[in-house]
């Protein structure tokens, strides 16, 4: 089948009533969690994982993907109106978005964020379709050393780009790899660190860990904070940006899309990094960089386009290489594995309905979000006023019931509570949970490829450095590891941060 036929086939899959419904549900749920501070797409996706057991893998992925990009739309609403980033990916939107709202331009800020996200989403999907095939052929050349190198590079990039100290993020990543080794060793059948527990012999599940750290951990932290929510009483008129606004935003949207797309493909990348990088780039390109932060539309358009493009591009490595590059796609990999599907270079061939259906559903989801979100903004704002004393216990109950229903095992509830406490303290002690979760998911692939490579090379570690692809991955990883020790490079990294 040619590219056009594939895309049409994908639309055929995505347009079935059930998939359309799931796409809608995902997009709406995503916007909702994007709007609500304290619960991100990762928590929401893990909470809804049990729901996906009763639907097809394609439908499950369509819904979970909808949550991810829906959250990018939703997060910007609270960033602009309340100066509260519903999502980490929309932190930079607060800077100029909220300043615009305070100057009575909340409408155009919300408008350009929605249109910018839509345009970026559209272009990113085209990019995904074009890039998927070459990347798949490239991935077919991968053996265990290449996969090992890719995982090392992904983990190091994620820790390098994390907001916490790199040492702490690396610690979290290594801890995650250790946790992934708990349970039965897939190569020898030996039980590791299970202390005689039958449940631990099966390993520590991704769902209880993710729900604990991103769901419960967040709620426990929020329970401690006694902040009162302030809702901006700005009039929401003129959601459509003016011609001048469009003129000012066109290039930032395009630059944000391209930047977001390529950062999204990179291991460790995704929506978060893309939005920060786009803001820095716009500031550098601008003729009046001093105005950034005072409420100019370029400061909203660039990052908003970038985070959506990044969110969508991060599906490429997952679906073509089988390697999640950030924590959200790690959860998606977990979901696919629960359905008995291991994504990789052969996925496009073996499960075309899943690949093309999911990719095209993202476009449909973006259209839905554009049509629905702008008129629904007042409702989203009202949802923010749901009292916390109802919201937080309900979210906790969702986590409790959800985590139990995965294996019908009470043990998972306690695992989730344990990781909830870990997540709570991690936040207090400035340790980032994202490298930990990514490492937990990648751990088994990491170990398998490391051991296979060493067996193949008879214990010679040079196998990772004599093959060109793995050498490239390892070099990037090593360079990033030594980066913080080189003072002038450190300065450069700091200047990229806002």
């Amino acid at each position: 089948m040619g590219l056009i036929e594939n895309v049409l086939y994908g639309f055929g899959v995505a347009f079935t009533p059930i998939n359309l419904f799931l796409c809608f549900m995902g997009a709406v749920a995503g916007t909702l969690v994007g709007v609500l501070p304290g619960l991100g797409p990762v928590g929401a996706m893990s909470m809804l994982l049990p729901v996906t057991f009763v639907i097809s893998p394609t439908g499950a992925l369509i819904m979970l993907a909808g949550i991810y990009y829906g959250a990018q739309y939703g997060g910007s609403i609270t960033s602009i109106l309340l100066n509260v980033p519903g999502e980490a990916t929309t932190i930079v939107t607060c800077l100029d978005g909220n300043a615009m709202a305070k100057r009575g331009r909340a409408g155009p800020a919300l408008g350009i964020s929605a249109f910018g996200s839509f345009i970026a989403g559209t272009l990113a999907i085209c990019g995904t379709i074009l890039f998927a095939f070459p990347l798949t052929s490239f991935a077919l050349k991968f053996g265990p050393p290449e996969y090992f190198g890719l995982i090392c590079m992904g983990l190091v990039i994620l820790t390098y780009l994390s907001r916490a100290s790199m040492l702490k993020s690396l610690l979290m990543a290594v801890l995650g790899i250790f946790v992934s080794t708990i349970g039965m060793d897939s190569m020898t059948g030996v039980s590791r660190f299970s202390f005689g527990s039958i449940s631990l012999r099966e390993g520590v599940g991704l769902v209880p860990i993710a729900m604990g750290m991103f769901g419960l951990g967040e709620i426990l932290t929020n329970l401690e904070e006694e902040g009162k929510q302030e809702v901006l009483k700005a009039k929401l008129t003129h959601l459509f940006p003016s011609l001048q606004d469009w003129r000012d935003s066109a290039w930032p949207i395009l630059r944000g899309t391209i930047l977001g797309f390529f950062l999204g493909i990179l291991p460790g990348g995704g929506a978060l990094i893309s939005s920060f990088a786009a803001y820095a780039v716009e500031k550098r390109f601008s003729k009046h960089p001093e105005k950034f932060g005072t409420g100019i539309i370029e400061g909203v358009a660039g990052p908003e386009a970038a985070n959506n493009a990044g969110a969508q591009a991060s599906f490429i490595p997952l679906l073509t290489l089988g390697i999640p590059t950030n924590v959200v796609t790690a959860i998606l990999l977990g979901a696919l594995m629960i359905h008995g599907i291991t994504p990789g270079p052969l996925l496009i061939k073996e499960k075309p309905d899943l690949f093309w259906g999911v990719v095209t559903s993202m476009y449909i989801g973006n259209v839905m979000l554009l049509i629905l979100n702008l008129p629904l903004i007042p409702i989203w704002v009202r949802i923010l006023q749901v009292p916390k004393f109802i919201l937080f216990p309900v979210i906790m109950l969702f986590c409790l019931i959800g985590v139990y229903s995965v294996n019908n095992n009470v043990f998972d509830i306690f695992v989730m509570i344990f990781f909830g406490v870990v997540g709570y303290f991690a936040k207090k002690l400035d340790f980032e949970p994202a490298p930990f979760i990514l490492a937990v998911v990648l751990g088994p692939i990491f170990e398998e490829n490391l051991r296979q490579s060493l067996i193949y090379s008879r214990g010679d570690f040079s196998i990772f450095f004599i093959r060109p692809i793995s050498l490239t991955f390892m070099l990037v990883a090593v360079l990033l590891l030594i980066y913080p020790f080189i003072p002038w490079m450190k300065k450069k990294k700091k200047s990229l941060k806002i």
Partner: protein
Amino acid sequence: MGKREPINGKDGVSALVLLALSLFICFGSLANLSYGSFHRPGPGFLPFWTGLLIGLMSLGLLVKSIWQGGGVGGKFFQRSFRKPLYALLALIAYGLLFVILGYLICNLLFMIFMILLMEKKKWYVAVGSGLITALAFYGVFSVWLQVPLPRGILF
């Protein structure tokens, strides 16, 4: 000028906890699992190396925390620390009673406890919200999704 705190408390404590964990992992993997060799790594190979790396990095963190100083950097726990603590106890109780009482009663009790804990609401508000939530969960999980959840003493 204030006195310089000799150690960054947060990082220092984290480093010590992680150091203890690394020792546990290293000894646990060497004592109970076969390490194998570089030629043929055994099940204890990766756990041992992760333990060692955690140990080395936590030592680095400890040194850094002493080097930097800075005390605990403000209050570690907020005034309302009791809320997450009580919530944690409620979660543990939920896990313990889940199978015995069933999810409906557990949901109801959990909601009532949390509402009374978080906001000093009237008891009928808490009971009402608890009942509505429990019924909504019943509708979604048992009727719609047909998830097999323990019904405990109710059925």
